[in-house]
């Protein structure tokens, strides 16, 4: 006899699945996590269908009860920390060796509390995130042959772009527009820096900035989803990668041309 009701288990599995999907996990990872949650709580009959924008989950207890639910996933942002953390918790539930589970709590309570904790977990402070953006941008600038001065300027660009990405994503903009705006900010910043330092090479700085935006996550997930047989999710992510790339190119190209026309 399972220790919790079918509905509760369904809710928990959906919650776990949607956290992974929102953090940018691959489709088969989401399916695997939901499967492990259900089996961990004693429901062996699990069917799921996951697309990048929603989850369908159907659990049965073997004789007469069947619960089917849908969860729509609106927001998606990269958060590899949540994926790692949640996978660890789910695995210890599945293998039934919760060393961290305190004896006075049931497994359901413990798991529920862990899910809440992971879901509301604070990312690194904004300043650290921006600094990491600066680091990425600066070292990619060096990687593509920048000088010390260009490195410093690329770090400033990376910092400011990371900071502005945070505020742009508060607006109701789609992925295309988000990346286009960010890319045009990169171009504006580096062009205005060129007014101050005449000798710098614009290309390395802009490339350093662009490398923050490249859709590595979408490419990887698209291929891995397609290879594991999730053709719908694979195609959708592939198109997402294409849209992001076109957004970056369109944003930076349009701004370069505009700057040329207006300021020279």
């Amino acid at each position: 006899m399972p220790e919790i009701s079918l509905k509760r288990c369904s809710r928990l599995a959906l919650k776990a699945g949607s956290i992974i999907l929102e953090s940018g996990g691959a489709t088969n990872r989401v399916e695997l996590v939901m499967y492990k949650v259900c089996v961990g709580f004693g429901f062996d009959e699990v069917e799921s269908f996951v697309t990048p924008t929603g989850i369908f989950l159907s659990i049965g207890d073997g004789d007469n009860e069947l619960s089917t639910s849908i969860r729509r996933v609106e927001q998606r942002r990269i958060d590899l920390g949540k994926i790692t953390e949640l996978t660890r918790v789910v695995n210890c539930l599945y293998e039934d060796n919760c060393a961290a589970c305190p004896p006075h709590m049931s497994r359901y309570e413990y798991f529920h509390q862990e899910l809440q904790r992971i879901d509301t977990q604070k990312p690194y402070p904004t300043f650290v995130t921006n600094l990491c953006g600066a680091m990425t941008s600066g070292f990619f600038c060096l990687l593509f042959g920048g000088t010390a001065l260009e490195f410093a300027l690329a770090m400033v660009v990376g910092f400011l772009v990371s900071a502005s990405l945070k505020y742009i994503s508060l607006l109701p903009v789609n992925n295309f527009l988000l990346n286009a705006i960010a890319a045009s900010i990169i171009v504006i910043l580096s062009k205005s820096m060129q007014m101050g330092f005449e000798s710098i090479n614009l290309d390395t700085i802009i490339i350093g900035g662009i490398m923050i935006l490249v859709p590595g996550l979408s490419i990887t997930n698209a291929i891995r989803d397609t290879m594991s047989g999730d053709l719908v999710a694979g195609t959708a992510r592939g198109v997402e990668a294409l849209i992001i790339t076109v957004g970056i190119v369109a944003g930076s190209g349009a701004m370069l041309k505009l700057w040329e026309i207006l300021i020279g």
Partner: protein
Amino acid sequence: MNTPWDINTFWQFCFAFLAILGFSMRSNLRGWRVLLTGLGGGICRASYLILLHYTDSVLLSVFLAIILVCIYSEVVARLVKTPVSVFVICVIIPLVPGRTMYHAMRAYIGSETALASSLIFETLMIAGTISIAIAVVASGTNLVMRLKHRF
């Protein structure tokens, strides 16, 4: 006789290491795992340069370098009990053709159509090669895991 095992490759390794360190921390990866993803990024860039020297073919070196780091991710991710895709996402970034894409765009807005189309083609070829390499390793791992469960 110049060899690729010089200080330049080492510096490229360090830059890629630090860049990917920043990238993975920006994606909110926590703890000492960021060192492992950074190391993967460094290996990716360095092996690409070394292979480029010996094979003299961009696409082949991209292909082999990505295969190498994907195998690295599959092994290390299982050792530290982390989803494999977390690693793959970070380590392929140094070879993603951001630079070719940018130069293609520059040529395009500069009305140099022939140059632009050859650069766009190169971008697509590199991106495609990366995809194929990831696909090869992902399916190879599936096969290995299936066989392991069978026997």
